[in-house]
């Protein structure tokens, strides 16, 4: 009984982890290659969720929703890159933080104007609702299993692309030496736009996967964004491997903390003290984890560079 609960919570942690990974992968590539801090990555997540939901409801087709959601976020990402962010690559982090902070305000308000401030609900497609008995006495949501599968699939694909293809070679080279990539005669602008658009599409994918289980509303990207930053910093900036490890660690720690911290505390301190300390500590846990990791390894678990 208790073991089953732990397995279930581990699945929940993994599911949160892959979700964070989808966001973190794009963000860490953009960090690593263009040296750009993009706070507006959360807005792309929101855009993905809105577009997918919107098209799902207007066309009535889940597949079309997914298609338009992904494609739309890709386009929005490329537009944002070309219009606003391209000029920021050579600027310092401060400029990037502020400009992308401005983009967050813009996107939140734009979405509010287009779709209103009401949260939008999209239901699970029929073929994905329901539960699977993965262990005796453990029914797990099919949709969440699908999220885990999609996340792991994307992680595998990314790993393959980065380690086995010419594009991946350029990406790795770009992360360590920009001038060299330019010297190879590669159109660096195009590469950047491509990488950014790709990262945006991944954020959009996370958003559209989240849409049927979370509330689709303005500002939905910020909370996950801050968690994703924690992931990237723990994993090491610029490292896909780090992003994956960081995402799974953060997903697990957060979920396990919420589930088991209070009961565990209650065995050590008084239950009423655990009542008030438990939830507070659980919400601070990932930040504590990040502080500890940085105190020991300032460049993150898989980071190569200090800056």
């Amino acid at each position, binding site marked *: 009984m208790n073991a089953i*609960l732990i397995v279930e919570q581990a699945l929940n942690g993994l599911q949160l982890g892959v979700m964070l990974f989808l966001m973190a992968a794009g963000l860490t590539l953009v960090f690593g290659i263009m040296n750009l801090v993009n706070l507006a990555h959360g807005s792309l997540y929101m855009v993905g969720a809105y577009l997918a939901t919107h098209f799902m409801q207007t066309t009535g087709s889940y597949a079309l929703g997914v298609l338009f959601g992904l494609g739309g976020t890709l386009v929005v990402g490329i537009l944002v890159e070309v219009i606003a962010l391209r000029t920021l690559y050579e600027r310092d982090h401060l400029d990037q933080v502020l400009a992308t902070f401005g983009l967050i305000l813009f996107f*939140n308000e734009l979405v509010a104007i287009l779709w209103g401030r009401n*949260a939008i*609900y999209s239901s699970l497609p029929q073929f994905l609702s329901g539960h699977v008995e993965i262990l005796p006495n453990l029914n797990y949501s099919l949709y969440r299993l699908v999220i885990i599968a999609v996340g792991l699939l994307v992680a595998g694909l990314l790993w393959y692309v980065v380690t086995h293809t010419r594009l991946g070679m350029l990406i790795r080279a770009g992360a360590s030496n920009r001038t060299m990539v330019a010297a190879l005669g590669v159109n660096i602008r195009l590469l950047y736009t491509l990488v950014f658009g790709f990262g945006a599409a991944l954020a959009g994918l996370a958003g559209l996967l*989240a849409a049927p289980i*979370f*509330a689709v509303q303005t500002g939905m990207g910020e909370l996950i964004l801050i968690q994703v930053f924690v992931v990237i910093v723990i994993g090491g900036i610029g490292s896909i491997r780090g992003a994956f490890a960081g995402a799974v660690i953060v997903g697990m720690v957060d979920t396990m903390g*919420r589930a088991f911290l209070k009961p565990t505390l209650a065995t050590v301190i008084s239950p009423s003290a655990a009542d008030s300390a438990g*939830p507070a500590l659980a919400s601070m846990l990932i930040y504590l984890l990040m502080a500890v990791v940085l105190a020991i390894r300032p460049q993150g678990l898989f980071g190569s560079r200090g800056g």
Partner: protein
Amino acid sequence: MRATTRVVLAGLLAASFASAPAMAQQKLKIGFITTLSGPGGIIGEHMKNSVELALDHLDRKVGGLATEVIYGDDQQKADVGKQVADEMLKKHQVNFVSGIIWSHVMLAVAPTVTSASTLMIGTNAGPHQLAGELCNENFFTTSWQNDQTPEAMGKYMSDEGLNDVYLMAPNYAAGKDMLTGFKRTFKGRIAGEVYTTVNQPDYQAEIAQLRAKNPKALMVFYPGGMGIQFLKQYSQAGLRGQIPVYSVFTVDEISLPALQHAALGQFETRIWSPDLKNPANQKYVDGYQKKFGKLPPFYGAQSYDGIMLIDSAVRAVKGNLADKKGMIAAMRKANFHSVRGKYTYNHNHFPVQNFYLLKAVAGASVSQPVMEIQKTVFANHKDSYSQDCKMKW
């Protein structure tokens, strides 16, 4: 100093001053503060709509005086709310301040207004301090004290003989107040009590814990977007049919269109519902649907009542806005047609009123549920903090 920069500063300053309207105290000015931007803005929109509807119903003359309502956006932040209140008081020199959704904003705004000897009509938040130690003769509310609604739910669930109830709320002051209120009247066993992080997007971990405890019923407080997320995920986890959910401030006319059938069968307690049968309410709900094309939530109903309460006060003093004592005395009688039906004021200026049990049932279609009153849980219910209020009349 170079001209360009001087112009920038002077311009900003001048524009800032210029936005102050000319002084003319012939008419009634009401400052209405609510949340108009950000995710909470949807609630503020309903409140603003209801104020406008009330003005329409009064031919834009509250208490017979030409009326100007100035709307202020508190951005759901206490310090901004206080700043807006200061602006209302000092710049617009309003006669009444009304509105306020959030308890923390209310606690910042109400003392500011009342200490400036201006009348304040709260139309939603009811923090216990204002009902108790901080009660003030200049402050009235057309809503409730925060604890009362969960008290009604606790009473109802006790009466139903429910046991092993699992409680969930976000980990902040109102969340704790709500569960405290619930436990004050609920006599059965509590199977577990869980506080989640404010605005947390995923409740899967907590839902798994809850399933493992296998309680007989669940009682939650998840206002706004949190409620939509929680109930959706609860339903997706397949628990909707197994463990019934009771809630306060979680399912309303704002979240119903988003929740759709995930809300069906849900129980809430409340002072008001669109289907309350009285002429004032019918006029309000019909008018609202006609003008804005949707059902109003309780936030709107309370705000509509707020304007009507002011109307009754100004009429009682025949438009003499300097007669604050007279207006306070008039409001204490609650002498107007409230959309919730007749109610009275307790000595702390909080309503003594009925609380009903509501259930989300299928409306025009299954995907458009509406709230329907099932029974009266409390008749003429008083809040639990009034004994701390020293005010006498």
